[in-house]
């Protein structure tokens, strides 16, 4: 079986390399990919359409905002599925915990807890910075959410899971993840109800005191906030459920 797998892998690699010869040359203006109006539009007109300097963010959150919505949904699904599969319910939850052989509960380490206590506020501030700065520099909802989620995981690592769950319980995390999707899809639905298509942020200029372009700009920030909510909550929920096999006590 291993040999077959190896052969398949090698064959795939050869195919990929064979096809790679055929790629357009670096910076070839005549290739269909470079000549296509789509790339030109992204490069030339992003600022005109949306006022966002970072065209990656504009493509991600506006031009292809529908994809990004479903990518957020994928993360949400991951969280919900992990909870659905692992979470102990009913009689299961009352059963004695599966103790591993001669397991010793680790107690919080003085040095680690003090460092983490010092760092967590800074990390959360950095998360907000990354989230809000997505329009001009790399960053945005996904990255900011990951950093924010990491801060909660850090608390759970330094002390134990209950301490982190005092700050963000798993039930509340699921709600937060849902709220994130609601924010994203809600902005889309709201712009649809205002007369545009789904996710047509420009229509929000009817209710916001800004131009159509700036409406896109601000709606993108709102959308990123929704993404950050979902990512933060799901990261923590997955960690909590995986590290305790769905029992939500003790922690790693």
């Amino acid at each position, binding site marked *: 079986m291993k040999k077959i797998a190896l052969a398949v892998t090698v064959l795939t690699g050869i195919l990929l390399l064979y096809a790679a010869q055929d790629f357009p040359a670096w910076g070839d203006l005549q290739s269909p990919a470079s000549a296509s109006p789509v790339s030109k539009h992204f490069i030339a007109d992003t600022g005109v359409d949306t006022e966002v300097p970072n065209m990656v963010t504009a493509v991600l959150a506006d031009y292809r905002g529908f994809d990004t919505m479903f990518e957020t949904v994928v993360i949400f699904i991951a969280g919900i599925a992990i909870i659905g599969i692992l979470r102990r319910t009913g009689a299961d939850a009352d059963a004695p915990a599966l103790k*591993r052989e001669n397991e010793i509960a680790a107690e919080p380490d003085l040095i680690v807890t003090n460092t983490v206590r010092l760092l967590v506020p800074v990390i959360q501030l950095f998360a907000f910075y990354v989230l809000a700065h997505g329009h001009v*520099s790399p960053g945005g909802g996904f990255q900011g959410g990951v950093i924010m989620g990491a801060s909660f*995981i850090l608390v759970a*690592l*330094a002390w134990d899971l209950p301490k982190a769950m005092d700050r963000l319980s798993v039930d509340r995390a699921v709600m937060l993840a849902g709220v994130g999707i609601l924010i994203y899809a809600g902005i889309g639905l709201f712009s649809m109800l205002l007369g545009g298509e789904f996710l047509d942020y420009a229509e929000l200029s009817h209710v916001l005191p800004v131009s159509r372009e700036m409406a896109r700009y601000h709606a993108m920030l709102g959308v990123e906030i929704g993404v950050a909510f979902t990512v933060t909550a799901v990261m923590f929920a997955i960690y909590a459920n995986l590290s305790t096999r769905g029992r939500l006590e003790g922690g790693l």
Partner: protein
Amino acid sequence: MTVEGFTVFAGAALFVLMLPALYRVAVGPTSFDRLVAVNVIGTKTAVLLVVIGTLFGRLDMFVDFALAYALLNFVASLAVARYLNRTRSMPAKKPAKRRTPRKKKARAS
């Protein structure tokens, strides 16, 4: 020697000096040795990101990457240390060499 030349040199040197650490990751012999080496590589990757940022002239973007990377590296090494500390199967009364497969040693010597 220009600043640009030095930057390229520093980046290359960082990369080359990561190789001994990579050797430690591959060879072990205990999983803690591997972890130390992974931690070193992680920290140095954050530094390498800053170096690359200087080279590209887009340090404003790359410092954010580096900070996020250093943060995640810290979380990862804490998590693994915590995991290994928790899942040991014997109390530490009698220090015993574990996680050191004999066969590997024989092959290495």
